[in-house]
């Protein structure tokens, strides 16, 4: 029971960290502190959390335009994520990237990308490095339902399959790509079923249930480390905010749908389940929550107070530079 309590609170802490950071970022966006785009992960926290809980710093994560949650779950400090969106030197990409280009290779966050697709191939490449150098490391790609219709999905999954690479492909199926519904964009909306075309396991999981994600990801990662090849893990989930901050709910999805998914909030679900299983109750969760809230406030303060980079920094690192 102890172990489970630890796990539950650890998962909750990560989800809360993502949630509260995102909400802070959304406010900051309104306040003009975020200079470019800002795609939040609110509602989908269970996915990154459940998957990354299994990863060490040697494992690498490749992500998308909606990458704050992956960065935080992989261990990028909150202040560095926020500072990056605020365009500051403290940012994990030193202000070069913003929301869609978060880099922290030191902890295995190998980059989020403003282009849909490439993370799938890059995670496959990380798997190849692992195989060649026998490091036991796993490459993980997070991507959306939208990306699953892209050619990169087909090529990446097949390559990982035939080379039996230690890769986990996590499709975050939130049913929309910007405002285009998956039911319009795909002949078959069950992405996990495509795994059969590559002869690899395809698993569907409730992406709002962090324990379910944790368990399924655990199996897949064990499989990967054992040299048995990649897995496609489809997490059915939902973003409860707009596609990108500043946009409006223009009517492309029903209000009832949004409400129904909000009722299945992953943080709330975890609380309920822990209560049901008598692992812990609101007081424990609330304590974690407010400790995280304090961290977020402090991180935000640190981020806003950190300086902007110098203009001339824009010109370095185009090519390899011998480090001093």
């Amino acid at each position, binding site marked *: 029971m102890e172990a489970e309590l630890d796990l539950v609170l650890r998962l909750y802490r990560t989800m809360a960290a993502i949630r509260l950071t995102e909400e802070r970022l959304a406010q900051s966006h309104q306040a003009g502190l975020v*200079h*470019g*785009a800002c795609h939040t992960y609110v509602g989908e926290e269970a996915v990154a959390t459940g998957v990354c809980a299994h990863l060490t710093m040697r494992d690498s994560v490749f992500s998308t335009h909606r990458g704050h949650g992956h960065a935080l779950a992989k261990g990028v400090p909150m202040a560095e994520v926020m500072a990056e969106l605020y*365009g*500051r030197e403290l*940012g994990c*990409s030193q*202000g*070069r*990237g*913003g929301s*869609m*280009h978060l880099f922290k290779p030191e902890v295995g966050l190998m980059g989020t*990308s*403003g*282009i*849909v*697709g490439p993370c799938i191939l890059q995670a496959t490449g990380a798997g190849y490095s692992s195989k060649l150098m026998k490091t036991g490391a796993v490459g993980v790609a997070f991507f959306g339902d*939208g*990306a699953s*219709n*892209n*050619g990169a999905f087909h090529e990446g999954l097949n390559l990982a399959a035939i080379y039996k690479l230690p890769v986990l492909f996590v499709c975050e199926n939130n049913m929309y*790509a*910007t*405002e*285009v519904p998956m039911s*319009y*964009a*795909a002949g078959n909306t069950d992405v996990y079923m495509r795994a059969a075309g590559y002869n690899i396991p395809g698993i569907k999981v409730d992406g709002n249930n962090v324990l379910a994600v944790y368990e399924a990801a655990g199996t897949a990662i064990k499989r990967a480390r054992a040299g048995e090849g990649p897995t496609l893990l489809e997490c059915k989930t939902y973003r409860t905010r707009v596609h990108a901050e500043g946009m409006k709910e*223009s009517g*492309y999805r029903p209000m009832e749908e949004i409400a129904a998914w909000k009722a299945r909030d992953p943080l709330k679900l975890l609380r309920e389940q822990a209560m049901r299983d008598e692992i812990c109750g609101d007081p424990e969760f609330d304590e974690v929550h407010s400790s995280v809230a304090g961290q977020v406030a402090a991180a935000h303060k640190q981020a806003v107070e950190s300086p*902007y*980079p*110098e*203009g*001339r*920094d*824009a*010109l370095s690192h*185009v090519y390899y530079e011998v480090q001093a």
Partner: protein
Amino acid sequence: MKELTYTAAAREALTEEMARDATIFVMGEGIGKRGGNFNTTAGLFDLYGGVRLCDTPITERGFIGLAVGAAMTGTRPVIDFMFVDFILDGMGEIMNQMAKMQYMSSGRLTMPVVLRGCIGIGGASATHHSGNYYAMFANVPGLRVVVPTTPADAKGLFKTALRGYDPVLFLEHKSLLNTKGPVPEEDVAIPFGVARIAREGHSVTVVALTVMVNRVLQVADTLEKEGISVEVIDPRTVSPLDTDTICASIKKTGRALVVDEAFAPCGIGAEIAARVMETAFDELDAPVRRLNGAFVPTPYSPPLESVIVPSNDAIATAIRDLVRE
């Protein structure tokens, strides 16, 4: 004349041509009911329906390849690709198929495809939403490459694109989308390969591309007060590229500067410099100079971003230096 934004002017061209020609259809992400990420197709779905305003999955290569096949079989696709960075995934379809199809079929197939969308640095869009790449496309035989600066040019050149039979890259700098300007009431199609003299002058010729035209015009006003009279030329299309107009101007001024946000190496400025030297060497009182965006990926943070784009100051300095040379 009426006053329209750049995007509204282009949209007017599109809707007028769609009314005239039932074979035109538009494809892209969110260009259906949503009306496009930049309102490029706002209102058209209601007029023309979902087959002619067709939303797509995120398959840039796929729908560009589809457009090639559609054009080969008698329809006119307009691909609304949002950001030029995204169509790099479709470069094979553009360069190996679209650009070559008329040639390989000895003209028995035509290739009336318009690929339209945003280019340019600005607004902290960072490196995956700020490519320019028109120089690359100008390096490919078979493509037409259009980079309008004013609303009137956006409309007139879009019409030419929609009435022609060649594949056209129609590239709209993101900083221009909401700029306003006069647009003729009449049906004007502006031919490709004819530069626009955006400002007359006699001390120095400045060729500027897309958004830099407006920046150079501002600088020219300032320099006028210093007694430097700047002639500003907007090529409008970079393939074909109207060097006659540029050389004619140089005949008058003896000096030329190219101001371009895009990368210098093998860029439009290089091509202009080479052509001017080839055909107007004896007219030149000084070498043709280039002022380009820095040769780096686009950084996000505003203080970084602003450094890599030619500023008004840098432009003014470059012009002053050139006049003195």
